[in-house]
Structures are given as C-alpha cells and as structure tokens.
C-alpha cells in the first residue's frame, strides 16, 4: 500500500492568495479538454468551503484561531473507496496559463528560477540510471534511463484518480496509444461499485514537458512519448 502525503493546497491553484479570500475564486472545470489547452479539473472544492477535514483537522486542533484557512495533511491509508468524492482532492492540477512554471503560487517555494530550470532538465535527462534504478523505491523520478545516449526505458508514473496506488510503466514497451490503454486497463482495478466497466468512460491524460495536462491521443505516438512526464486516468464523468 502506498502512503501518499498529499496536501489539498492552493499550491496548484491559480489563486494568488491575496487577502486570503479563497472564497472569491471560481475554479473552472473544463468539460472538453483540448490538446493545446491545459487540462484543469477540480470538484469546485475551493468554492466557499473549508478544506475537507481529514484525520488531522486543523479546525479541531485549534478551533479558536481567527480565520486561518489551514490545509490539513491528507493522509491516505490506501482505501480506494474512500476517495470517490473527495473534495480535498490531493492534487488539483489547476493550471493557470499565466503562470510560467508548473507551480501556481508565484514564487513558492522560494527557489531561484535557474534552479527550477535545472530541476526540469534533471527530470528530463536523468542519466544516473544505474544508481537510480537500484535505489529508487518510489515514483520519485518520473523518467529514468539507463546508459548515456539513447535510453532503453522510459518510465512514467501512472495514476488513476481515486486509486491510492500509482504505477510506473515503461513507455518503450508500447508502440501505440491502443497498446498503452490496453495495458493500463489491466493494471488498475475497476471492480469498484460506482465505476462503469466501459472503458470509454475513462480519459487518459498526461502532463507534458511544459507542465500542461492534455488529453492523450491528439499527437502522434512518438511525439507523445517524447514529451510525456506522467499519466493520469480520469473517470470521464460527462461521458
């Protein structure tokens, strides 16, 4: 079971956190993600509601603190069923086009831009493959390649919305979207009560090099493999 510490934070929201009036901000949910636009989803969790209280509710801890909107740690125990309608969505990838970086609170954490660039390069060209493959126990680095020139493997993290356990797959093993999706179907449990077994009701999305979330399938497979950083399978609620 994978324990994931996640925070339902405005870190990934377009909110500039001015005046702390989070209630003012609407969050758009795009129904039809288009390849060239950032995919954004959120269950409107930010509208006028406090963040979901989890085991560690800050409100319970210090009820009389004035007006602090705290963000409880979302500690999952790995039960998939708990997560269906989670408002405190662990990772609301709400992207603001205006933001230059993946991160959406401008300038936070306070890391100089040249370091951020270097980190992106590092994630793209992670070449210390031998050591990484041996020691990595988690999906910390999304890509790892062995050898120096062409990589012979291309691991990316795959998550399914609502499932605690993420997977890592080697994209080099597939040569088409169909092959990929066929494989993914077998990887993720779909025996949950509320889920359609019809795979047409799932959407495969991916995050590209620029940090944007796009719907998989619009670009040629080769282009896709060169730019994909990670994958996420979403239930397509609008059918």
């Amino acid at each position: 079971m994978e324990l994931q510490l996640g925070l339902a934070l405005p870190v990934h929201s377009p909110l500039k956190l001015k005046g702390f009036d989070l209630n003012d901000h609407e969050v758009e949910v795009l129904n039809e993600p288009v390849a060239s636009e950032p995919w954004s989803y959120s269950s409107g969790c930010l509208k006028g509601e406090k963040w979901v209280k989890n085991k560690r509710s800050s409100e319970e801890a210090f009820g009389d603190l004035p007006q602090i909107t705290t963000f409880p740690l979302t500690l999952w125990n790995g039960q998939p069923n708990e997560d269906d309608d989670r408002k405190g969505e662990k990772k609301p990838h709400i992207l603001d086009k205006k933001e230059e970086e993946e991160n959406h609170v401008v300038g936070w954490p306070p890391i100089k831009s040249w370091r951020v660039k270097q980190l992106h390069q590092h994630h793209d060209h992670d070449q210390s493959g031998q050591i990484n493959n041996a020691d990595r126990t988690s999906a910390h680095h999304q890509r790892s390649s062995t050898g120096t020139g062409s990589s012979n493997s291309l691991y990316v993290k795959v998550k399914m919305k609502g499932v605690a356990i993420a997977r890592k797959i080697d994209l080099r093993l597939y040569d088409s979207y169909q092959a990929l999706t066929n494989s993914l179907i077998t990887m993720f449990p779909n025996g949950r009560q509320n889920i359609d077994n019809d795979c047409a009701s799932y959407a495969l999305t991916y995050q590209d090099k620029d940090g944007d979330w796009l719907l998989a399938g619009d670009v040629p497979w080769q282009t896709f493999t060169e730019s994909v950083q990670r994958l996420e399978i979403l239930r397509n609620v609008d059918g």
Partner: protein
Amino acid sequence: MDPERKKVLERVAVSTFPDEVLERVLVQLKSHKDRSSVSLVCHSWYDAERFSRTHVFIANCYSVTPEIVSRRFPNIRSVSLKGKPRFSDFNLVPPKWGADIRSWLVMFAAKYPFLEELRLKRMTVTDESLEFLALSCPNFKGLSLLSCDGFSTDGLAAIATHCKNLTELDIQENDLNDKSGSWLSCFPENFSSLEVLNFANLSNDVNFEALERLVSRCKSLKVLKVNRNITLEQLPRLLIHAPLLTELGTGSFLQEHPACQYSELENAFNKCMNLNTLSGLSEVTALSLPALYPTCANLTFLNLSCAALQSGELAKLLVHCPCLRRLWVLDTVEDKGLEAVGSNCPLLEELRVFPTDPFDEDTFHGVTESGFIAVSYGCRRLSYVLYFCRQMTNAAVETIVQNCPDFTHFRLCIMNPWQPDYQTNEPMDKAFCAVVKTCTRLQRLAVSGLLTDLTFEYIGKYAKNLETLSVAFAGSSDWGMQCVLGGCPKLRKLEIRDCPFGNAALLSGLDKYESMRSLWMSGCKVTMNGCRLLAKEMPRLNVEVIKVDGSNESQADKVYVYRSVAGPRRDAPPFVLTL
C-alpha cells in the same frame, strides 16, 4: 593639490592627528561598517575616510545617486551594487522594474575611469552597458554578476575582447540570453591574467580548445567553474593546466566510457591538492564519484546542489571530507544522507538542503525533521542552515537549536504553506520561539509553516540581533507585524508575502523604517491609502507600490519601502507608483 582638500588639511592642522597619518591608518580599514563609524567621528575624520576609501558597497542602488557617491568618494576603485528586492529572485517583481546599471556606468566613466572591480547583484545590465564599461575603464579587472538580467553572451564577448587586464569573470545565476558560447573565444590569444572564471550557469557549448588554451595561459588561475557541457573526459585536460586551483566547478560528471578515462581523472584530481571548494558534479554517478576522494581531504566547501546524490553515495563521499565547513546538497540524499553528514563532518558550519521536487507534493521523499536532527547532533558548530522540507515538528526544532545554539542564519522552508506540526497538529510557533530564544546571535531568519502572532511576539521580544526576516503565509493579524517592528532593534530588511498584515501593521513601523534598509510586503492587506499615509508622514522614505494587472484599485498589491537620500526614483516604470 585639490583646493578643497587643502582647506581640509589646514583645518585639520590644529588637530593633534596629522591627516596623512590618519589616512594611512584608515586605508587599512576594509569593513564598510567600520568606515561608516569612522566617518561619523568628526569632520576631519569624515574627510580622511572619504579620501581613503577605495571600495564602496551600495546595498540599494536607489538609496543614493551616482552623483552623491562620486562627490563623496573620489578615489573609488571597486563598486558593489545591489538592485532589485530579493523577492525578484522568485518572480515577484515584474520585468523592467528598474535597477539599471547604465546611469552608474556613465558616472564611473567620468569620475572613476580607473575603476577595477564591479560586483552587481539583481541589477539590469545590457550588452551595451557591458561594452561601454569595457571601453571606458581600461584598467578594469573584475566583473561579478549575480542574479542580474538584461544582457546576453554578446556582452560577455565585449568584456573578453576589451578588458586586457581582466582577472575575474564571475557570471552566476543570471537571467541572461545565452546566445552562444563564442564569447569565450574572444579572449585574445596573448591574454593571460585571469584568476577567476565562472561560467557554470551558461548553457551553450564553449569551444573547448579555446578554453583549454586559456586555462593553460592563465598561470594564476585559482577559480574555475565550467558549465555542464564540459564532459568528464575533458576535465583532466583542464586540471593539468591549473595546479593552483582552489575552487573547482566541474561540468558533467557522467562517465561515458567507464574503463579508460578513470585513471586519467584520478591522476588529474590527485594533482589538485589545493582545492578547498568543489561544485558542479552534475549527472554524477557512484562510478565517477570515487575519483574525487583524494582531493577531498582539504575541502571546506562542497556544493552538491546540482548533483542528485543518493544517501549511500553521499555517505561514502563524506568519509573523505573531514574538514568540511559548508555543504550544499539536494534532498535526494534524504535523512539517511544527512545522518552521514552528522557522522562525518564535525566542523560543519553551514548546511543547505535544496528540494528536487518542490512543486510536486506527491513526493514523500526528500528530507524530514529527522535528517535535520541528525545533523544537529553531529555538527554542533552549525551556524547557517537553509532547509527545504515537507514536514517538521516543534519538538524537532527545539532539539536542533538546543544542540546548535550558535545559529546566525536559520532559514527553514516547510514547503506547504500553513502546514502545522505534523505530529501534534499545532502551529509551528514553538519552533521559532525556541530559535529566537536560544540563538542569541541570530541575524537572519526565515519562517514557515502554520504560524500565529505568537511567533512574531517572540521574534520581536527575543531576536535582538536579527537583521533580516523573511515571512510567508504566516501570522494571524496586524499584531504580529507590529511586534516585530516594535522589537528587533537591529532589523534592516523585512520581507513579507501573503500574510494578513494591513495598514495598522504597516504604519506601526513609522519610526523604524528609516533605520532599516527596506521593507517588502506583497499579497498582504495593505491599501493604497495606508501607503499614502506612510509616504506623507515619512518624506525621506520612498514608498513604492507595484500595481498588478487586474487587481483592486484600492489594494496595494506589492509595496516596497526604503530609505533614500536620492528622493523618489526618476526611472520608475508605469506600474511602479511612487507615493
């Protein structure tokens, strides 16, 4: 003799201390703080000091004008200038804000044609300016650009071409337009005076043969920091020409062909016995790392912040570095790696741990409070820490400062805003209270995590030596900021973002701001009216509001307040309102 100087001397003749002697003594004074004190003693000392000063450090380029500086100090050879507020490093200051070096260079060309050194931090510098500098100051020796913007490698080419006596070219962390590496080839073939060359942050290839020739010609080269395009195979060819190197920044440390190059590398490093600083090492692996071991014995500063080392690799390396005083790492080393730091580096004074996945809160790797605690048990002399983590507890920090009470710089960044102590779910107030109470020498503090006004009450009350305070996503009300402004007698820089501090807090510092260098507040609750009031009450402060597109008319989104004898800026762009 300058008639003004003659008058001064005549006046001084009656004093018991001959001017010439005073000046000879004062020339020895290097610290600008000491010099400031000296200049305040009396008129004759003021004058003696100003004539004997050769280096001027201007911490805020808008606090004074070039004219004022050149009038007071006629004999300057070296200038250090800082421009934009520090939060510009994190994109909080819009582009074209200002801090252009141009007007200063015009003054230098006229009044300091013998200028030798220029060190700039967060200034805007154009290629034209660099060329102008190179052509106007024939004796120019040292250029250092840190976190500057506005120039390209063409500007560097101009410096390389024209500065015949250049000893230092230090280009760090700048936002420059890296067009090509051809600037390096602009050093003339007979040029040999370079002692410091740092182009680690540039991304284009330089001509390696030109670099090799340059390094072999410059027999006094002490500092060489190359960019990551220089390969491990090329490195020995540079090292053999630079036996005097004390600081080395390598390029890529990835071994393409394992067997053959290793011995060459080992030999090269065996010769580098004067190294005290090592950096670079990008793409380092466990295979190439051991080549460094012989050279590590005398290392005092190891910068691994571009090398994603694992804990085991770091541990093996640190065994060879008993003299380390400064260590920078990425959080890939994890807590286990930090335990190795605690075990192997008893002399450590500075530790910086940078995050590898700052924007991905999925990561449950990185370092935690345990790593920090482990370091504190082993490195009792720790005085500078910069620590990025995702979880922390009050108890951990209390233990840490008990072990290391000598902190002068404590910068803790819990990366998730408003995060409480993850074990007790309380605010992190107790942590920072412990820091300020225990670390009496604290000069610089950066706070994070869930914090109430209590933290700031303690800071105001106990942080007697605090000079710089950085606050983000913290506090409950105006009272917090009021406590800081009401206490902290030595406060010079206060930078705040996204805190619930408003006009009452801003205005409570009326008496304090003139004794401070600057105040930055962004994303707070300050309004235009509050700023106007401040500006009205304190005419010797520059109160500037940076307007952000689409914001409320009456809100003061970003406020920058600083003391100045130069009056309001004359070069402010339209989005900067001077009140």
